């Protein structure tokens, strides 16, 4: 665990802490990679950047890091463009591609050159190696590392400058279940220390237990930017599911009382616009047997599919129906 107070150095600098992305536009030939991408990453929160492959997640991260130029818009780190940071790894720690290593260099030496580039020394390298649990393998050549070990090495590199902002592109990719659990806890602890954490994924299930805030992207822009609970509520609507063997009877009773009803399964009907307790009372008064009356709660997966349905650019032609 980090004992030092984290992130205070750059939180004290002028401008908004965290990352502010505003109106990014970028064209590759005829393809529009970014089309007005805007969102904010705040301290103390894990923000998930989710969307289908090709939606612009990685491009946005490269723009934030000053690697790719944009045609329009700005990406600011604590109010400053990345390229203007003197020791950037002390402001933003990032992992874009865990495989981007020299196979013949040891993990420790990889961290050592990075440390030297920021004016840090070998002691800091040993600290981050221990922090990510890579000590036994640190002096071996990185070419022999498993994907999970490479991810840990990449995380160590991101932590090297003890930055207030951490940005990881698809950190769960290729990790085994142990690694995923470790990564989740680790991201949560980074946010708990007051850091701004941005994590991208093309799989909602990977971030749903980790992120507090979600930016859903599709076709180069943010199509939703909200807290996880708010997003679920928005998609769930005010529908109630009723499970009953007397479906026809229940529907007659509910329709007579003025509810909007639809049969949605062999023994389920969905009621819109009525709270669950009122439905239960009405059915009891009319002696309609039922085994369940519950407010419909969308999963994050539903939210994601709902939001990105329009935005998925390449959907297999045969894949016409999405089963719920």
């Amino acid at each position, binding site marked *: 665990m980090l004992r030092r107070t984290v992130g205070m150095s750059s939180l004290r600098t002028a401008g908004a802490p965290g990352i502010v992305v505003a109106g990014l536009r970028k064209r590759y030939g005829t393809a529009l990679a970014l089309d007005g991408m805007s969102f904010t990453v705040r301290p103390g929160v894990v923000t998930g950047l989710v969307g289908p492959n090709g939606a612009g997640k990685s491009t946005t991260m490269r723009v934030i890091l000053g690697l790719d*130029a944009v045609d329009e818009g700005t990406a600011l780190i604590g109010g400053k463009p990345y390229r203007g940071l003197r020791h950037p790894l002390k402001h933003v720690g990032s992992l*874009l591609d865990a495989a981007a290593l020299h196979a013949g*260099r040891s993990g420790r030496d990889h961290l050592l050159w990075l440390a*030297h580039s*920021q004016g840090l020394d070998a002691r800091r390298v040993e600290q981050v190696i221990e922090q990510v649990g890579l000590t036994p393998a640190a002096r071996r050549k990185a070419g022999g590392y498993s994907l999970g070990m490479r991810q840990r090495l990449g995380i160590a590199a991101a932590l090297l400058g003890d930055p207030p902002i951490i940005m990881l592109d698809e950190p769960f990719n290729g990790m085994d279940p142990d690694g995923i659990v470790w990564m989740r806890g680790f991201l949560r602890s980074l946010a708990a220390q007051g850091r701004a954490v941005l994590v991208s994924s093309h799989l909602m299930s990977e971030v749903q237990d980790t992120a507090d805030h979600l930016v859903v992207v599709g076709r180069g822009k943010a199509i939703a930017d909200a807290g996880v609970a708010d997003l679920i509520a928005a998609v769930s609507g005010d529908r109630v599911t009723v499970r009953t063997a007397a479906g026809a009877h229940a529907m007659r009773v509910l329709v007579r009382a003025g509810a909007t009803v639809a049969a949605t399964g062999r023994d389920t009907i969905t009621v819109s616009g009525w709270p669950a307790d009122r439905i239960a009372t009405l059915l009891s008064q009319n002696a309609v047997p039922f085994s369940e009356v519950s407010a419909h709660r969308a999963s994050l997966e539903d939210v994601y599919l709902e939001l990105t349905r329009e935005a998925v650019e390449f959907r297999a032609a045969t894949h016409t129906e999405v089963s719920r």
Partner: protein
Amino acid sequence: MKRALHAEWTKMRTVAGPLWLLLGTVAATVSLSAVAASLANCTATGCGGDTAKLALVGVYLGQAPVAILGVLVIGGEYGSGMIRTTLAAMPRRTTVLTAKAVALTGSVAVGGTVAVLGAVLAGRLVLPDAGDRALSLSDGPTLRAVFGTVLYLILIGLLSLGVAAAVRDSATGIGVVLGLLYVVPIVSQTISDPGWRRLLEKMAPMTSGLAVQATTDLGSLPIGPWAGLGVTAGWAIATLLVGGLLLRTRDA
């Protein structure tokens, strides 16, 4: 700049490749020079030509590992994708390329000096007494040939770095540099017009730069020793400028 240089030097010394390539330069230079010296037809008055040039002929081969090292210093990072880590850590791209150039210059200066002095020593051991006298480092033109050959190797390394920064691929970079070095002299042999051939030899990075090895009959050279090395330097500067400009303007 100091920190970028420290980082690039750490990169250079923490993989085995650069050391092996420089040892390759030493081995190739010394052994080719020794073979050439042993085949020389020496009499009591001399070895029938330019002894210093003969003893240093090994760099024709020894420059190839230097060129590969120059390409790999940046081309290898494009191959693995590590260039993005480098540029995220050091966003000033001109500084990164400069730091790479300085780290490369230092490494090649050490390796090149060992290779060239080894070739001279081999010449002195293999050639009879006549060659021994001609290969004294206290002799001005010989010292210039030796020193100039080390500079030549550094310039070939820098030229290779510039090319690789522009093409962003190791295999392409090595192909371009070795082609530039070895194909031009071969092509020039097929040109019958002496004027054109001379011009090509003046312009090509290898044939012009190795004029610095000549110690006798300077008047017959297509280009003077230092002017020739200047042409090679021009090549190195031009490719570094183009590579640097592309590095600054392109997405990483």
